[in-house]
């Protein structure tokens, strides 16, 4: 535990040094990046120490805040969710030290690094916190740090808008969580997680769960709650998007799982709700991704899709847990957890790659890119690996985790079992299949338009490989994707303690429940190895066949067209047009066509714009109506300072009166007394 | 495997019902009016066979109903519709408001809905086969959907026929001994309805040169 505390301390100290050294970009970068790498390294060491049993896993100190205590604990679930934080943050920091070079002259980097290290520390504390107040403080620190990171490039209007959207969404989330913790602590003396107990005065578990879905689902970016996500990820610097998508959004899932652990009386319909939300997010997320022409927006929507897939896994598991179908629960949780790791790596890789591409070519618009694989071979190759992986194709890692989810939903407690669970399982299978096919479509477009073919603009053709510091994390993450695929049974075995904790089963029972699916997964891993071998064999065979024969190069066969230009290539919009047309209602893509007319047409134009469905249909009407309702209170705003002071005074007076009346009420007086006895600091 | 029990004794009832459902899907996915007319004729023929396959109905009492249904729904109505199609000389197009693919999805969704509703309903007599009630409900809903989601007036007639087919199946499952007179009355009603609609379509077309019901709004003032 001391290692982990030291890790937090180093991060924050490094951030402060960077803040103070803000004038010198070089020094700030050095302090920020080094403290991030060292801090996260120590954090990993701390986890390892606890794993091998060499170190205490809990830490508890009283805290001078009502209901609060500095209570930290490392259990398997916390350790698991701190892994993406501790691995992705330093890699992104290394990348950032190269990425931020062009910003050196026009921006102060001190604040950026301070926020970045605070974000990491906040995320780590969220996973470790065992007290409601501490959790909320860490949650808020994390969210505010993320806000300052998103708005780093604040000269651009869309970045400021994205920051505002993020701030509103994240505070809606915090509000829901605040109410949730108050309800949970209703029956106990403190907000320590261990004290949360069911009892006669306890709030209904389902209400707590719904609030958790609202609060944590917003952070995870589930549709229709996550309208902030496709705005915020593209606006943030790419290394921040990578950490936010890879690590921070997963903490939404962490929160859900933690609440599922804390509350008792789990209902099957919780799982149905999660599966429904997950299926909607997966399918609509990937459809929206398909329609995007901005590389980072595309990746942002793909994050929604993958969080949806993870939520479906969690939902299946919750259904299984609530109906005593423990194979389903085990495999559902295992699939979801494995997919969390895989998605963290892949999406980290893709966002970092997209950042390198955008910086090198000067734009994120797919239709202005092209031919980058030739110009940026390392970045491009890593991006291709990531894109094939995220499309869920073998032999890479996301296929392994999706396979586990398929195994869960096909198995004897899923599709082959009794309804209604079998119908839920069928929904999962159908959504996974549809989302899988569309993901392949989407990333074929991302790779095909951005990296392959001929460059469409001069900037794209001038793009060059970025600095080595930026390539190194990409290569490490790509290698991780391959390794996790080929050794998937091993990795899943290591996840079993977390699964056992979530299903309240012993390690042996979990191993038995998962044995069948792990056997299949071993086959999948072997087949993946076989695929690599066959590919190698076929490549060698072709080399031998072509040896000594004539191998020439020429232009692409243009079907007889004599003067091809890069502009006649298929574009991102034209590539996805069939799907956008077909799924028209769900994609909400608007096109404006000015068709060429007359015998000698001069020009024509076609533009497409994609709007976010949840933003258009839910958020905007909601805020518009709230704004309309609140505009009636506008008379309160005078701009005169003494009136505002009067308001503050009135509020304090009202609170004092309320408190006095509460204390006078006999049964409440006893309660306040009880609380002040248990927390002496009050 | 449990389906085996359902499939065993009522194999032909189930087969007929599934074929009826497939015709529903085909109707939702077809773009040609003439194909839709033929499909509705096929559905009528299948419908006439249905009571004969159900052991609980007395064979001879339903035989007459079956024969009349076969005659009307299998041959007379389709012939009327084909004649209307020919005399009105309209383009052989369905003109959907909801796309064909989405209609197919609606078809499957409606079937699931049918199964769900019928799992909640308790009937005085248990239905012949577990498929009867869901199929009846979903056929009715498909008919309704066809009426509201297609622009051509002829499709409204076909949708109406499909809707009535659903009600008929529902009646088969609900009433142990189909009251002969009620069924005859309904059949007479449809006969008149189809006849009137055929004439109406012919006249609409002659007045306006199209049978797009969406355009009828221009008649208001």
């Amino acid at each position, binding site marked *: 535990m001391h290692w982990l505390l030291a890790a937090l301390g180093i991060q924050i100290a490094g951030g402060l040094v960077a803040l103070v050294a803000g004038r010198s970009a070089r020094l700030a970068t050095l302090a920020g990046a080094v403290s991030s790498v060292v801090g996260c390294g120590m954090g990993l060491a701390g986890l390892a120490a606890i794993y091998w049993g060499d170190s205490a896993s809990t830490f508890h100190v009283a805290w001078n805040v009502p209901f609060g205590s500095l209570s930290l604990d490392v259990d398997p679930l916390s350790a698991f969710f701190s892994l993406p934080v501790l691995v992705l943050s330093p890699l992104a920091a290394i990348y950032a030290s190269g990425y931020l070079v062009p910003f050196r002259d026009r921006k102060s980097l001190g604040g950026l690094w301070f926020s970045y290290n605070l974000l990491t520390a906040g995320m780590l504390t969220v996973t470790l916190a065992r007290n409601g107040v501490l959790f909320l403080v860490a949650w808020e620190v994390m969210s505010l740090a993320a806000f300052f990171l998103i708005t780093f490039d604040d000269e651009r209007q869309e970045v400021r808008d994205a920051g505002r959207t993020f701030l509103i969404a994240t505070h809606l989330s915090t509000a829901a969580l605040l109410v949730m913790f108050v309800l949970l602590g209703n029956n106990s003396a403190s907000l320590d997680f261990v004290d949360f107990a069911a009892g006669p005065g306890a709030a209904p578990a389902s209400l707590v769960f719904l609030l958790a879905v609202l609060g944590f689902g917003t952070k995870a970016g589930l549709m229709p709650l996550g309208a902030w996500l496709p705005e915020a990820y593209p606006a943030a610097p790419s290394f921040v998007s990578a950490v936010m998508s890879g690590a921070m959004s997963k903490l939404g899932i962490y929160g859900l799982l933690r609440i599922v652990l804390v509350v008792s009386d789990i209902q099957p319909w919780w799982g149905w709700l999660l599966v429904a939300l997950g299926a909607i997010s997966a399918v609509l997320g990937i459809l929206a991704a398909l329609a995007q022409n901005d590389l980072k927006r595309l990746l942002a929507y793909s994050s929604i899709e993958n969080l949806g897939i993870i939520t479906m896994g969690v939902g299946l598991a919750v259904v299984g847990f609530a109906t005593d179908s423990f194979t389903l629960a085990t495999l559902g949780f295992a699939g979801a957890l494995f997919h969390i790791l895989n998605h963290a790596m892949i999406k980290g890789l893709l966002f970092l790659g997209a950042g390198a591409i955008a910086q090198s070519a000067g734009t994120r618009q797919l239709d202005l890119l092209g031919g980058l*694989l*030739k110009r940026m071979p390392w970045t491009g190759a890593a991006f291709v690996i990531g894109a094939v992986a995220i499309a*869920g*194709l*073998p032999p890479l890692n996301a296929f392994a985790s999706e*396979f586990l989810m*398929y*195994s869960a939903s096909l*198995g004897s407690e899923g599709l082959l079992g009794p309804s209604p669970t079998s*119908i839920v399982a*069928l929904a999962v*299978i159908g959504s996974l299949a*549809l989302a*899988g*096919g569309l993901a*392949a*479509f989407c990333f*074929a477009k991302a*790779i*095909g*338009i951005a*990296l*392959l073919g001929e460059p469409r603009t001069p900037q794209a053709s001038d793009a060059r490989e970025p600095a080595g510091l930026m390539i190194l994390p990409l290569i490490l993450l790509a290698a991780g994707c391959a390794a996790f695929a080929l050794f998937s049974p091993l990795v899943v075995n290591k996840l079993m303690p977390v699964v056992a904790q979530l299903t309240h089963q012993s390690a042996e029972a979990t191993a038995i429940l998962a044995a069948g699916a792990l056997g299949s997964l071993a*086959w999948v891993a072997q*087949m993946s190895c076989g*695929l690599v071998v066959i590919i190698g064999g*076929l*490549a060698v065979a*072709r080399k031998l*066949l*072509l040896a000594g024969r004539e*191998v*020439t*190069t*020429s232009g*692409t*066969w243009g*079907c007889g067209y004599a003067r091809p230009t890069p502009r006649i*290539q*298929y574009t991102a919009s*034209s*590539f*996805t*047009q069939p799907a956008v*047309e*077909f799924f028209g209602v769900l994609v909400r893509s608007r096109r404006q066509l000015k068709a060429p007319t007359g015998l000698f047409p001069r020009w024509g134009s076609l533009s497409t714009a994609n709007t976010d469905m949840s933003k258009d249909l839910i958020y905007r009407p909601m805020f518009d109506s709230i704004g309309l309702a609140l505009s009636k209170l506008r008379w309160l705003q005078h701009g005169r300072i003494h009136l505002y002071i009067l308001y503050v005074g009135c509020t304090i007076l009202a609170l004092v009166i309320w408190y006095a009346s509460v204390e006078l009420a006999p049964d409440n007086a006893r309660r306040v007394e009880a609380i002040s006895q248990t927390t002496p600091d009050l | *495997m449990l*389906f*085996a029990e359902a*499939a065993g004794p009522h194999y032909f009832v189930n*087969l007929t019902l599934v074929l009826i459902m497939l015709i529903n*899907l085909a109707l939702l996915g077809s773009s040609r009016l003439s194909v839709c007319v033929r499909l509705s004729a096929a559905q009528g023929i299948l419908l006439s066979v249905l009571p004969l396959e159900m052991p609980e109905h007395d064979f001879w009492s339903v035989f007459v109903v079956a024969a009349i249904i076969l005659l009307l729904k299998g041959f007379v109505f389709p012939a009327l519709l084909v004649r209307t199609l020919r005399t009105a000389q309209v383009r052989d197009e369905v003109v959907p408001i909801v796309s064909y*693919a989405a209609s*197919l*999805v609606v078809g499957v969704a409606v*079937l*699931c809905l049918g*199964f769900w509703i019928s799992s909640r309903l308790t009937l005085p007599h248990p239905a012949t086969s577990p*498929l009867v009630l*869901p199929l009846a409900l979903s056929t009715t809903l498909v008919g309704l959907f066809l009426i509201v989601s297609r622009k051509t007036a002829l499709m409204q007639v076909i949708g109406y026929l499909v809707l009535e087919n659903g009600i008929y199946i529902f009646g088969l499952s609900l009433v142990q001994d189909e009251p002969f007179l009620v069924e005859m009355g309904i059949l007479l009603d449809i006969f008149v309805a189809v006849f009137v609609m055929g004439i109406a379509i012919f006249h609409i077309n002659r007045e306006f040169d199209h049978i797009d019901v969406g355009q009828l709004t221009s008649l208001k003032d």
Partner: protein
Amino acid sequence: MHGEGSIPLVLTLVLAPFFLGVINRTKAIVGGRTGQPLLQVYFDLFKLLGKGAVYSRTTTWVFRAGPIVGLAAVLLVATLVPFGPFRALVSFDGDLILLAYLLGLGRMSTVLAALDTGSPFEGMGASREVMFSALAEPALLLGLAALARATHVLSLTEMHRLLDASGWANEGLAISLVAVALVVVFLAENSRIPVDDPNTHLELTMVHEVMVLDHGGPDFAYILYGAALKLWILGSLVTGLVVPAGTTVAVVELGVALASMLGLAILVGLIESSMARLRMIRVPQLLVGAVALSSLALVLEFGGL
């Protein structure tokens, strides 16, 4: 792994091009021509393997990896599919998922190779291919899920074993719906009429053929062989389903399986001779129809409970 499992693999590897030959010969006969020899595809493959290669200047390693990954994926799929009395070389619970996703990998590699050339025509073909397969994939997986639900097993080999005559008697309705859905998937995945016309001469209307315009020599041989294998594999999935092997005599069963493959090839030839391809915008509808049939089968299985 099972020793007998190598038999389906060898049969696939050897006979797949012949299957394509039968289709072509059927079309020729119906069209009143003598047609190419039945073994023409083998000759083509041999000829292509002996050629040099021309690569476009635009292309990268992705273009060269395309045919290799595509063929490797299909070769791996060939180890998963049982044939007649013989079990597949590899079978485990959930291998049907691997089958669908390996086919996806093969497609992805072809699509990326096509986009790598920068040719607008190949982009067009690639776009259509991924669109159609994005809809064919749910149809395939839901169909296989319906079969899993009907037989209560999760591997293709076990399913194949249980789908005998008694399986048909019990679950005939659902299975026949799945069979129709799988035939549609079979035609779509293999770019046959009515989804795509393998013999078309206009690049604007091609799907699969236009994507491989720039490949030549051994690369094209890989692609051609991979396509033949895929046709055989999906075909044997369909025939294994439709023609239940009721006997216990292996030789008879093998004969039945081979004869049904021949029948399927002739059927495909007849379909291609007698109908035109669908308009592009009607193809997704056909595939949604296949999804609907698969779901209908599942609904029937659930409703039968």
